[in-house]
């Protein structure tokens, strides 16, 4: 048992440590740190130019891609971002969604190394903790995007089947020849409200896609997982200020769902998924492509209900169709 004196001692030792840590002078000058970060006034000016270019590019892409998609004939390929494989360094360079900043040539190979090291560590932890046996994932999967330019720097997203620390999705930044973690995200919440560990255990081995689907001029990332009859996915984005999963609200996506069912994908700078109107046990359903739109005011993706949609009315932007009550 502890006594109040013991607990008081916690604060005393802690404040003593704060003083001891504060007593040591910084080993670098702030100017040295600044130059290390490679940030200059010129680069800030560049960024404004890039943002302007991004806005024009986004408008053009919207005109080209979204219009045809609404009529049910989406373009067959992304006009902006090229996607690499997860394993080949040769394919790990890409064009940032809306900027022309160059990704350092060494970033791709360094990312492969970083992800492989992390995967090795986490895979061993999964085996040691009995997770591998419980979920029977073999091989242990690690996916990542290509390195992409963002805000004058280079970022990427990596996802792992399991992280003993509970953050299987990592947002990474490339600085001074090394990849470091900008943010670690817990597993996304699916339609059942689960945020269980490890709910991204069943990652596909597809690369993480990159595009600007939120329209903020910054890259967004789509990570895909495996389900029984389709490939669900979740979007990692910094839209709104912090790296997070963007929730969905619309057909087949009840409030706060962060995992979107039925094969979401980036087409150009649009996020699309498939709605299957097959009520359970029908012979064959009709598939409709749904285009999801990011709503900056609510910070989520919404989509209009597709024609003939039967289900709970969750969409807030159902402008194109009326919804029928559930059976």
């Amino acid at each position, binding site marked *: 048992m*502890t006594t109040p004196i*013991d*607990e008081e*001692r*916690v*604060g005393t*030792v*802690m*404040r*003593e*440590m*704060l*003083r*001891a*840590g*504060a*007593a*040591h002078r*910084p*080993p*670098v000058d*702030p*100017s040295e*740190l*600044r130059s*290390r*970060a490679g*940030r200059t*006034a010129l680069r*800030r000016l560049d960024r404004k130019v890039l943002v302007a270019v991004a806005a024009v590019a986004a408008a053009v892409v919207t005109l080209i891609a979204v219009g045809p998609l609404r009529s049910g004939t989406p373009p067959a390929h992304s006009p902006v971002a090229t996607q690499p494989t997860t394993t080949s360094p040769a394919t790990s360079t890409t064009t940032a969604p809306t900027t022309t900043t160059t990704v350092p040539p060494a970033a791709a190979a360094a990312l492969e190394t970083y992800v492989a090291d992390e995967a*090795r*560590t*986490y895979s*061993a*932890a999964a085996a*040691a*903790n009995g997770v591998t046996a419980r979920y029977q994932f073999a091989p242990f999967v690690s996916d990542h995007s290509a390195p992409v330019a963002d805000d004058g*720097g280079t970022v990427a997203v990596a996802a792992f089947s399991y992280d*003993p*620390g509970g*953050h299987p999705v990592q947002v990474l930044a490339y*600085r001074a020849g090394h990849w*470091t*973690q*900008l943010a*670690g995200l817990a597993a996304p919440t699916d339609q059942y409200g689960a945020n269980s560990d490890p709910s991204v255990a069943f990652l596909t081995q597809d690369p993480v896609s990159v595009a600007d689907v939120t329209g903020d001029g910054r890259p967004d990332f789509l990570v895909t997982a495996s389900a029984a009859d389709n490939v669900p996915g979740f979007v990692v984005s910094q839209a709104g200020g912090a790296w997070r999963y963007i929730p969905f609200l619309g057909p087949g996506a009840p409030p706060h769902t962060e995992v979107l069912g039925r094969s979401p994908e980036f087409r150009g700078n649009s996020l699309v998924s498939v709605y299957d109107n097959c009520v359970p046990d029908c012979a064959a359903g009709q598939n409709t492509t749904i285009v999801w739109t990011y709503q900056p005011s609510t910070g989520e993706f919404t989509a209009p209900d597709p024609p003939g949609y039967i289900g709970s009315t969750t969409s807030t932007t159902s402008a194109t169709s009326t919804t029928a009550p559930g059976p």
Partner: protein
Amino acid sequence: MRESAERRPSATRHAVEDGRRDLGAEDAYDAFFQDAWPRLQGQAYVLTGNLEQAQDLTQEALLRAWTHWDRIAGYEDPEGWTRRVLHNLCIQSWRRAQVRRLDDARATATSTVSATVAASDDHVLLAEAMRHLPGDQARALLLHDGLGMTVAETARELGVPEGTVKSWLSRTRKTVAAHLTRSVRAAQGGGER
């Protein structure tokens, strides 16, 4: 509320405001750096128990602050942003150390905390105990008991209800105190920790 000499966010704010008015962004950042460094490094030391690691992590947090300076300079408390980044970096370093130990058959009860440079036993023990707490709970204890924040301020910084903070504080103090007491008794009894 207990006053703490470690906590002087207003000085940072003034430096930043002055910077926005009179100095360039670089000068404002430099002033922020000089002002915030001791406090941030002290917190990193509490969370890692290792001065070298604390220096590295503090540098990394302040480097990130410069990377986002055009945004965070406009915040009411840029040090709060940097502090959050620093705490996350410290907690990530715990996780990595923990994973390495799991991954390594040579894992022993000795943590990296024991590699502390010129630290007292109390410091080593406290940092070790902090590492065994869940990240947010360790931050709550540091913010409240170390930096002297109120429960309301701590709750706001962590984004949790005040009741949760109170509960965490009560529990974590007991846990950490028990760790310190147990270790001291073991040492007095001549046993190993």
